[in-house]
């Protein structure tokens, strides 16, 4: 009975196995990126970037229909363009990163919606906006796994300057020139993972599998390494549970995954060891020293 509900779908149907593999790949790469987005106070930047990739994906869609490769390539180009332009504007002027990004992503989003509505049907628009993780073919799965691998490798390279720049940017500027390139590389990773999630969860929810696990992790640890591990596990668990939920109840898969992650987030807010609500209401007697 429990076996049928929790494991059966994956032994029985190949599309469920593919979906599970995809969601685990997305968790491994996206969750660490999400942790850094959150710690660098860039959570909403990720959200904005998700909208910014829409016109590129839409152009890919216009040129070659619902071809995930074309849409991915278009999304990457649009995302990089917006990320790098916004990053350069922020670095060369006094404008803060979030403000410069807001202007770029709004223009980009308007362009994207215009392009999709010129040619697409409502079904197409739904697919672009919410993705479909149950329709993964082999090639798409390989692209997702490849992007995840690249993400982890690049993150390993820029990890140290990224951490130092997050804590003490002025210090990094006095000892090294790695800060700028590391920041741009990080923005590129954000884009890659958004496009990655875009195939599974769609433009609107892609950022969910990055930010929500990071938010969950913040309530359970004060240590960066532990936070990243918790975020990855939380993302993978949300992905698995969301797929099961979707299979049993016919809730669309993307929203199901994000709903499970949201439920975990609420539990963490309430019961988290680090700053959770219950912990704050009932902290116990104060200590001796």
């Amino acid at each position: 009975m429990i076996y049928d509900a929790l494991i059966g779908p994956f032994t029985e149907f190949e599309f469920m196995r593919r979906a599970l593999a995809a969601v685990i790949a997305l968790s491994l790469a996206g969750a660490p990126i999400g942790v850094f987005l959150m710690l660098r106070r860039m959570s909403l930047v990720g959200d904005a970037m998700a909208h910014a990739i829409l016109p590129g994906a839409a152009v890919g869609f216009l040129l070659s229909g619902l071809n995930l490769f074309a849409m991915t390539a278009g999304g990457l180009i649009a995302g990089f363009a917006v990320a790098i332009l916004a990053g350069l504007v922020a670095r060369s002027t006094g404008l803060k990163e979030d403000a410069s990004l807001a202007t770029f992503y709004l223009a980009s989003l308007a362009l994207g919606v215009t392009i999709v509505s010129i040619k697409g049907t409502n079904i197409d628009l739904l697919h672009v906006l919410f993705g479909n993780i149950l329709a993964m073919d082999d090639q798409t799965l390989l692209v997702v796994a490849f992007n995840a691998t690249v993400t982890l490798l690049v993150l390993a390279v820029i990890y140290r300057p990224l951490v130092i720049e997050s804590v003490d940017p002025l210090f990094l500027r006095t000892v090294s020139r790695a800060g700028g390139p590391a920041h741009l590389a990080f923005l590129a990773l954000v884009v890659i993972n958004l496009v990655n999630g875009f195939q599974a969860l769609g433009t609107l929810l892609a950022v969910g599998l990055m930010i929500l696990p990071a938010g969950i992790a913040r309530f359970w640890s004060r240590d960066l390494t532990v936070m990243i591990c918790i975020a990855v596990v939380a993302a993978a668990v949300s992905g698995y549970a969301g797929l099961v939920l979707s299979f049993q109840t016919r809730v669309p898969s993307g929203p199901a995954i994000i709903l499970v992650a949201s439920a975990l987030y609420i539990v963490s807010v309430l019961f988290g060891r680090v700053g959770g609500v219950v912990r704050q209401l009932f902290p116990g007697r104060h200590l001796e020293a």
Partner: protein
Amino acid sequence: MAALHFHNVTLGYDRHPAVHHLNGEVAPGALLAVIGPNGAGKSTLLRGIVGILRPLDGSIHLGGLDSRDIAYLPQSAEIDRSFPISVLDFVATGLWRGTGLFGGIGKAAREKILRAIASVGLNGFENRPIGTLSGGQMQRVLFARVLLQDAGLIVLDEPFNAIDSKTTADLLALVKHWHGEGRTVLAALHDMEMVRTHFSETLVLARGPVAWGPTAEVLTPENLMVAMRMCEAFDDSAAACSADDARSRAA
């Protein structure tokens, strides 16, 4: 060979000078206090020296020092104290020059880090997140990092602000220790008594240099009055500075 050579340096923001036409030299191994009222350009000068701010005019020569051979302790640093990093890891970033992007931290380096933490009196704090430290403890952590940077030129921007007398005494001892090791130390300070007793050389700054020399000769009521009278506000309609034209005509 001077450790620092200012050649007609003007530093500022949006073309408005905050340090105006500064000339002079800092000898290697000097212990120089930079004093002046708020807005006198002390922090701006230090930012220019460490290379965060490019001069609007003139140049600063580092007498053969690599820019990475400078340790800089900024005022109320732009440090994100909520970031989950331990005291040990934070202090360890001071070893950047040796480790760079990928270099590992071996047993010897770890010993060095622990010694640096111990010498600022923070034994036992190694695994505490920096977010849980008090202001004085955080300042000690920053000094420990400067210690690890092992730099020939140490630049401290108001290092003793809002720090109790015990911590100030401990950290001041560290500054004098660096001086004893032959390092060049520059510090922007407010406490005249401390400057008088501990710093051999003083620069009184009020946008332009008011006086620069041995502390006993420079730290006079007259010089301080001149510095205090300096006008703080930028004049939005100020004309372009003509000092350079005058100089070239004279030459």
